């Protein structure tokens, strides 16, 4: 299949994927101006790299991949330091899930998620729930989690980027995963309209 003319293709990107890229960028950086700039940089990088786009992935996946890199670059430039106030905030939140000897409390252990993963992904309500659950995470913990799980940045790089140790990273990721899992279960999978429906 022939590639469309670059200028035409680039204008289509703005119409077809601009909204998606902007919303993702905004969710990540929580600043409209920065999000707009990141999306613009993404489109410019896509124009420059269009020749290399082999069509192996969808156009949107390709653009999202570029945007994720731009977001990581943004955090890299910020060079922010992470305090552990947020981690401390989360430290004992799920202690009631376990009995004193360390096993799961049988009534509060993970429920079975019956959702067929691929079906869930086609429901916009799921993504809204996920965004809401992510939004509940303390900001710095969310930054660490999104970088690791959404952008697939290697752990070592995140440590270097945020000037934190490996153990701090693992603690933050563990708490974030636990919180997100709990939130998704409560607000989606255990709901009649959710995955169990």
């Amino acid at each position, binding site marked *: 299949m022939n590639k469309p003319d670059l200028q035409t293709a680039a204008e289509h990107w703005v119409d077809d994927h601009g909204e998606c890229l902007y919303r993702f960028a905004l969710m990540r950086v929580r600043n409209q101006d920065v999000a707009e700039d990141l*999306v613009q940089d993404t489109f410019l990088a896509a124009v420059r790299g269009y020749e290399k786009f082999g069509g192996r992935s969808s156009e949107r996946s390709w653009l999202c991949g570029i945007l994720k890199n731009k977001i990581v670059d943004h955090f890299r430039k910020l060079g922010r330091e992470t305090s552990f106030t947020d981690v401390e905030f989360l430290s004992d939140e799920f202690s009631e899930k376990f009995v004193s000897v360390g096993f799961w409390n049988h009534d509060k252990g993970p429920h079975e998620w019956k959702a067929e993963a691929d079906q869930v992904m086609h429901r*916009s309500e799921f993504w809204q729930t996920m965004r809401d659950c992510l939004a509940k995470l303390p900001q710095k913990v969310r930054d660490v989690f999104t970088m690791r799980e959404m952008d697939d940045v290697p752990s070592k790089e995140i440590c270097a980027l945020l000037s934190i140790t490996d153990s701090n990273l693992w603690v933050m990721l*563990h708490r974030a995963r636990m919180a997100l899992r709990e939130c998704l279960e409560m607000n989606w999978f255990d709901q009649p309209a959710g995955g169990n429906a």
Partner: protein
Amino acid sequence: MPEEPYNPSPIGNPSVLARRNWWQTKLVIFIGKHTPKCREMVRILSKSLDEPMPLAMRIKKRIHYLICCWCQRYEEQLLYMRKTARAFAEHADESSNAVVPDEAKGRWKEVVSASARVMQGWSEKMEIAGRKFERPHLMWTRALLLTTITAIVAVGFVIAWTNLVRQKASLTDFRDEMISFAKVDPTLEMRSSDLSELMTWLATTHAMSGITIPEKVKSMEPVGCRTLRFRGNDVGLICFRRSNGRRLHLFVADRSAFPRLPSRNYAEFLAQGEWMTAAWADREHTYLMAIQSDQPVLQSLLSL
């Protein structure tokens, strides 16, 4: 604190092992004691998403799952969350209602179009530049280069060949060299006093046939013959013994070596020291006769 140890796998839970009988109860307690507790296991499972889990721990995890369906679920759910998180960006437009400001959208289009135009212009220039070096043109250049080299080599060859021909055609060189050779009284490869025998030897071993020897020379006593090389040509040498005991040397080469020589009646005579030479040619051969004498003697030998 209950007296009975906490039951990690109560009856009715979907784990492989539950305390359904004495044997299973013992096994559940044993596994619960010797594998990480669930609180620790969830930390380990989370860490395993960021770095590989050691083999021993993987085995313990599998054993632990026998009594704990919750940890197994937890791991499955972590993996599911990772999968959905990776796909989140592509569904970000479904996750919120944030609207792109019109001004931003307009700016993106403007900037992106301008950049695309520049890139297209650039790639067109690259294409034009690339065309100059593309294969057919390159092949034409190569062909021209090869032709030039071939022409130079051919010219060089012609010059060299011309020089060679000139050298071959230089009777003076031939004469000088043959006299030098005759002076050393060369060894003869075939010795015989029978002229026909010598002629046969030359004809069979060096394809030299059709040699015409002047009658007066024929009447002399043949001594022998041999061949030698002069500038790429075979030269036959037949020696005769003169009445004074000295040798007469008759050198015979192919006609092409000295094509411009006159016939025997108009032979070229040239003296060199005490040696006198006569050179002539017939249809097939070039002849050079050398004796230690003067021109009249040599002339008389050539006369019919």
